[in-house]
C-alpha cells in the first residue's frame, strides 16, 4: 500500500476519510474539511460536466507552499489537499482541503485561506462542458 500523500493531483475519485485521518492529531480539537463539488450550473448556464487539468509537477509543490503559508499565519496542525483532474460528473468532488488545529477559529480561517490561494495560484484549470455541447475554459 503506498504511503499517504497529503498533497495530491489525481484522476481517481476523492474520499475525505484518509485526509481527515492523516490531519487529525491528539492535540487538535478541530478539523475543517472543504469539499469543492462540480455544480450543475455556472452563472445560471446549465453544465453537463467539468474537466480539470493540472500542471501536476508544479501543482503539488504549489499546494505545499500554500500550506506552509497557512502554517505561518495561524497556529494549526496538519493540512492535506487532494485535487482531482480529468472529467467529473455533476456532484463529484473536485477538491478536498482538510486543516486540523487545536482551536476551531484557526482551522476555519486556514481552510478558507488555502482555498483562496489555490484559486489564485495553483496551476489547475477547469473546463466547463455546457449542456448545449459547447466547452469553455474558466478564466
Amino acid at each position: 500500500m503506498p504511503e499517504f500523500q497529503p498533497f495530491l493531483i489525481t484522476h481517481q475519485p476523492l474520499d475525505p476519510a484518509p485526509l481527515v485521518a492523516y490531519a487529525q492529531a491528539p492535540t487538535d480539537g478541530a478539523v475543517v474539511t472543504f469539499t469543492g463539488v462540480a455544480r450543475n450550473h455556472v452563472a445560471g448556464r446549465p453544465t453537463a460536466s467539468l474537466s480539470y487539468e493540472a500542471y501536476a509537477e508544479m501543482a503539488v509543490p504549489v499546494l505545499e507552499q500554500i500550506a506552509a503559508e497557512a502554517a505561518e499565519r495561524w497556529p494549526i496542525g496538519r493540512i492535506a489537499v487532494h485535487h482531482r483532474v480529468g472529467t467529473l460528473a455533476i456532484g463529484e468532488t473536485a477538491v478536498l482541503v482538510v486543516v486540523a488545529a487545536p482551536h476551531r477559529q484557526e482551522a476555519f480561517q486556514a481552510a478558507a485561506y488555502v482555498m483562496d490561494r489555490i484559486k489564485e495560484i495553483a496551476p489547475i484549470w477547469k473546463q466547463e462542458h455546457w449542456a448545449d455541447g459547447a466547452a469553455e475554459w474558466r478564466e
Partner: protein
Amino acid sequence: MITIQIRLFAAHRDIVGRPELTLAQPAGATLGEVWAHLVVEHPALARYTGRLLFAVNQQFADPTTVLHDGDEVAFIPPVSGGAAVL
C-alpha cells in the same frame, strides 16, 4: 543560443495546438521575451498578456527572469483550481 522546453495548458494549448514546444532562443532571453515571441506566432494568445503567471522549472518566476539552456518554461493561464465554486 539556448534551447528551452515550453509547457502549454488549457486555453493556451488549445490555441497553440500542442502541449509542448521546444524553442531555440538567443542567450540572455527572458521569460517575457519568449512570451512575446509566442504571441507573434499565435496572436490569439495576446489576450492573455498581463493575465498569466510565469514559471521556470516548476517555480514561479517573473517576465524579467533570464532563461538558461534546458529550462522548462510554463505560461500559466488564469487558474481556476478547486472550483465549481466561484
